[in-house]
């Protein structure tokens, strides 16, 4: 136990003043994860729990055939990433994202949303 206390003390000493940042989790999306929207969205918005590094964060949206339906480069501001969408017909779309939070932690994920049914 003495060693554990000593090591913990050393750890806290060394790290004193270090800014705390963490993995970027997906906080919410618009269209929402797993949701069905009656009309085709013009844009996908992903909000994360941490600020992102724009150069190393990306997103793609594809239809049921695997065809990309996002267009243009994602726009990233602080913890929010947005990407424009091509006109979507009714169907299921998959979003795949990978982001790097400002402290170099990477996270990734994917989900679907549905249009018009």
């Amino acid at each position, binding site marked *: *136990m003495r060693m554990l206390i000593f*090591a913990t003390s050393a750890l806290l000493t060394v790290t004193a003043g270090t800014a705390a940042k963490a993995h970027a989790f997906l906080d919410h999306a618009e269209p929402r994860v797993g949701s069905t929207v009656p009309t085709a969205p013009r844009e996908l918005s992903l909000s994360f729990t941490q600020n992102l590094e724009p150069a190393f964060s990306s997103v793609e949206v594809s239809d049921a055939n695997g065809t990309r339906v996002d267009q243009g480069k994602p726009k990233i501001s602080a913890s929010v990433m947005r990407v424009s969408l091509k006109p979507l017909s009714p169907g299921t779309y998959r979003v795949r994202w990978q982001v790097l939070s400002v402290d170099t932690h990477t996270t990734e994920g994917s989900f679907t949303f549905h249009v018009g049914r």
Partner: protein
Amino acid sequence: MSRYMPLSFALASTIALASTSDAFAHCFVGARFFPATLATDDPCVADEMSLPTVSWSKTADMPPASEWDISGELSKRITENFGVSIGETWAQIRQPDGSVTAGFQNFETAFQYQLLKDRSHELALMAGVVVEWGNTGATNSGLGTSYSLVTPTLYVGKGFGELPDTVAWARPFAVTGQFGYQIPTSSFDFSQSVFIPQQLVYGASLQYSMPYLKSEVIDLQLPDFFNHLIPIVEVSLTTPVANNFGNPYTTTGTVNPGVIWVGSYFQVGLEAQIPINRESGSGVGVLGQLHLYLDDMFPTTVGQPLFGGTSAAPRKLTF
């Protein structure tokens, strides 16, 4: 000078020299996050600290004694895939007649290597050797032993994210397991005149991740508190398999239903401990833990592997 001082100094020095690296950190495997489990170990090397872990239970004695265990564990990545953990437990056993035995159990270390992190299959494999060092605890009171215990162990974790859309609700499920073979450094305990058995030490967890449900399957717009929960059932078992002359080869252990709340920098877990048989304890115990994600709390210092990190710029992320 304490016998721990040289090792402590070395540890503190290496922490101070921590290099920079690209940090995946605690147990992320693709979209899956495996939380630190309380009764067993998760399948990833990491920079993390469990302080404290507290348990209360009643022993299998007749009449039973009540036991408090308070432990701490510090885990540190030496390289991206190799980590070392140190841990210590203070125990107090109160007999029905009021007499109390208290002291430290043997000092414990674990040396672990990450064999695999398969992001697309949410699969993690880790191998390790756990050593409980003899003569480092309260041997006079029986809480420590004069011999060491060496346990080669394999750890596994698997998420169910590949399940088809028809059972999408089950994708947040994941299982973890650990399987170890414990070998004592002595075959006979002369202080208690008993053989020291070789044992299988194994366990598993079944968990359902509400964060995974929200971010990967469906956002039910639940109150935020619930989106941080991971309901879990752990099983922790021990079975003597050799050198157990004169004793029954009975499996002992507990089944632990509970829940873990996962935050950005720490998690809090609480579980009931239900003995699987009379030899495992008397009545339901309680196990609680505060667990700190050092890699998220201190991403540029302690949250980095000590050596061999990828200090270059982060890689361009590709699908």
